[in-house]
């Protein structure tokens, strides 16, 4: 497995791509959901270090993972989001559901 997805201490760490759109989201969702079935995973961390672009497709991915992991008491964290990413997350209301790690 490449280091885009890593499980560290019950946290599924997802390194997001440079551009998060409808096309790139399909792959992220598919892989994330497969790994979230792993009983070791209790929380999900989205790492925006490499991300320069995100549209509403990204909101759907984060909200969808939140819906799944929160059923089991898990949390969704966001790290290294720049001010634009934070603005987009805020506009969609996601900042009420997720926690920023940085």
């Amino acid at each position, binding site marked *: 497995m490449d280091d885009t997805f890593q499980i560290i201490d019950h946290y599924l760490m997802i390194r997001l791509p440079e551009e998060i*759109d*409808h096309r790139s989201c399909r792959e992220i969702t598919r892989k994330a959901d497969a790994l979230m079935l792993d009983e070791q995973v209790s929380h999900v961390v989205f790492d925006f270090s490499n991300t320069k672009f995100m549209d509403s497709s990204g909101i*759907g*991915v984060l909200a969808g993972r939140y819906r799944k992991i929160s059923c089991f008491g898990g949390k969704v964290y966001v790290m290294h989001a720049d001010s*634009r990413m934070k603005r987009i997350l805020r*506009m969609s209301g996601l900042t009420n559901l997720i926690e920023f790690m940085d």
Partner: protein
Amino acid sequence: MENKMRIELDALPENEGFARVAVAAFVTYRNPTMEEISDIKTAVSEAVTNAVIHAYEEKGGRIVIRCSMQDDLLHMEVEDSGKGIADIGQAMVPLYTSRPDLERSGMGFAFMEAFMDSLEVKSAPGKGTCIIMEKRLGNLPWAADGE
């Protein structure tokens, strides 16, 4: 001076990135700020993705993007000949989506509205949809790029 361009492309996820970059490249000679470029890319992405997902339900079709620059004003239209929107008012309500099954969030129109200066939606069921957006770019052509 007016400057116009038109692109016609297949409604495929593979073309979403191309559409964003093409429109961004078209406005480059006006020396837009990084933020203006990001705003335009987001708006293009939302309109094109909606055509791919909603208008043609991921079965493909054609999308036409028309842009014009009249001095510092960008006028952009994204048109499809897909299924159209029956209730435009409802479609534009933030967080409304007809496709929660595809994990859409209903934020597309809200982002187009927030990142562009104006947004108009023309649509007829069975005929298609045309999204018309405008944005005034702040920098003068000779101004330096930046904040």
